[in-house]
C-alpha cells in the first residue's frame, strides 16, 4: 500500500496512475457539481431573510474552503520537496499556487456579489473577508517568487520556503484580523454569525463542497500532467506517448 504513495512521487508513475484515475474523478466531480448546482439553484428552499440571493453560497463556500485547503496543500508539497527533494512535490507546489489563487479570487468575487444585494455593500472589511484577501496576496507572493527565478528548481525551493513562512503566519494573521475586527466594529450586523442552516439547503452545499474538492484534485492532476510532459519531454516514455 505504501508503495502506491511512493510511486506517486515519480513523474512517470504519477502520469500513469493519474491517467487511470482522472476519468473517474472527473466524472464524479462533474456529477456532484452539476447535481449540487441544480439542486441548490432550483430546488433548495428560498431563504427567509435573503430570498434567492443566498444561493451563491453554493459557489462561495466551497471555493473559500478550497482556498485555505489549497494553501496547506501547497505548503505541504513545498515541505516535502525541501526535505525529500521529490520531483512530484515540486510540480504539485508549482501547480497548486495559481489554482489556489484563483479559488481565493473566486471566493472574494462571489462574496462581493453575494454582499451587494444581501447587505448592501460590495465590500466590507470584516474579519473573514480581510483574512481571505491577505491569503490571496500570500498566494500571489508564492506565484511571483517562483516565477522570478531564472532556474526553475531554485524558484521552487524559494517558493517552498515562502509557503512555509506563510503557513506559520496564517493562524497569527487570522487571529489578529479577527481580533482587529472585533476591536473596531462592535458587531451590530454579524456577517460572520453562523445561523443554523436548514438541511434542505445544507445537503446541496455538502455535495458541492465534495464536488469542489474532487474538482481541485482533477485540476491539480491535469496541470501536473502538463508540467510533467513539459519537463520530461526528452525522455523516451514521453516521446513514445507522443507517437
Amino acid at each position, binding site marked *: 500500500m505504501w508503495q502506491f504513495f511512493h510511486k506517486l512521487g515519480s513523474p512517470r508513475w504519477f502520469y500513469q496512475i493519474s491517467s487511470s484515475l482522472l476519468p473517474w474523478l472527473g466524472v464524479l466531480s462533474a456529477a456532484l457539481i452539476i447535481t449540487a448546482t441544480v439542486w441548490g439553484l432550483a430546488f433548495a428552499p428560498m431563504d427567509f431573510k435573503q430570498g434567492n440571493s443566498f444561493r451563491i453560497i453554493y459557489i462561495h463556500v466551497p471555493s473559500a474552503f478550497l482556498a485555505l485547503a489549497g494553501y496547506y496543500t501547497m505548503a505541504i508539497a513545498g515541505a516535502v520537496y525541501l526535505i525529500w527533494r521529490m520531483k512530484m512535490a515540486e510540480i504539485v507546489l508549482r501547480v497548486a499556487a495559481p489554482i489556489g489563487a484563483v479559488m481565493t479570487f473566486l471566493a472574494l468575487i462571489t462574496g462581493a456579489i453575494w454582499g451587494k444585494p444581501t447587505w448592501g455593500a460590495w465590500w466590507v472589511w470584516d474579519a473573514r473577508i480581510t483574512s481571505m484577501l491577505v491569503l490571496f496576496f500570500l498566494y500571489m*507572493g508564492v506565484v511571483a517568487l517562483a516565477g522570478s527565478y531564472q532556474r526553475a528548481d531554485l524558484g521552487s525551493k524559494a517558493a517552498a520556503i515562502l509557503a512555509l513562512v*506563510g503557513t506559520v503566519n496564517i493562524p497569527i494573521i487570522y487571529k489578529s484580523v479577527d481580533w*482587529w475586527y472585533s*476591536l473596531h466594529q462592535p458587531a451590530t450586523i454579524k456577517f460572520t454569525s453562523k445561523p443554523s442552516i436548514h438541511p434542505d439547503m445544507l445537503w446541496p452545499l455538502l455535495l458541492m463542497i465534495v464536488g469542489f474538492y474532487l474538482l481541485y484534485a482533477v485540476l491539480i492532476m491535469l496541470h501536473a500532467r502538463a508540467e510533467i510532459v513539459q519537463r520530461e519531454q526528452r525522455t523516451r516514455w514521453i516521446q513514445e506517448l507522443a507517437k
Partner: protein
Amino acid sequence: MSLASACWQMLRRDLTLLARRKMDVLNPLLFGFLVALLFPLGLGPAPASLALVAPGLLWIIALLSCLWATDGVFDEDFHDGSLALILLSPQPAYFLIMARLMAHWLASGFIVALVSPVLALMLYLPSEAMGVLFLSLLLGSASLVCIGAVGAALTVNVRNGGVLLSLIVLPLYVPVIIFGSAAVQAAAQLQDSTAYLAILAAMSLLAIVLVPLAITAALRINVDAA
C-alpha cells in the same frame, strides 16, 4: 574563533559598513518623511482629521521605512561573494545572520522609533500617545526588520526584487501593524496599551528566533546555485 566573537565581528562589520554609507540609512527615513508629507496633502491639513488617522498612519510609515531599509540587506554580500564565505564559516550561520539582523535593526527600526516623535508631531498625534508610540515601534520594528529580511533573502538574486519584496512581505506584516497601531490608538484614547505591547514583543521574539532559519535556507538556495 568563538561563536561570540564571530557574531561580534559580524555586528561590527555591518555597523561599520552602514556607518560608511549613511545615505543607505538615511534614504528609508527620508522616504518615511515624504510619505508623512503626502498624507496631509491628500487628506487635508485639518488637525482633527489627521489626529484621527495618526496612530495607524505613523505605524504604516514606520512599516514602509523598515521595509525599504531591509530591501538590499543581503544583495551586496551575495554579489561579491562574502555571503558564500559567511555561510561556509564553521560558526552556525543562524547566529551570524542574527547578528546581521541586529545591526540592521539598529540602523533602521531603532532609528525609526527614535525619529517617530517628530513624525507624530507633524501628524498631530495626541501627546499622551507619544511614549507608547516609541515603545511600540521599538518592540515591533524588530519583527518588521526580521520579516523584511526573509523577503530580502528570498529575492537576493532577482532583478527588480524591490517590488517583489513588498508583495511577499506585506501580507506577513499584517499582524504586526494590527497590534502596533492598536497600541498607539489605545494610548491616544487614554486606555491601557500594555496588552498590545506585550503581543508586539511576543511577535518580535518569535520572529527573531525563527527568521534566521528561513533566511539561512533561502540564502543557501541562492549561494549554492550561483
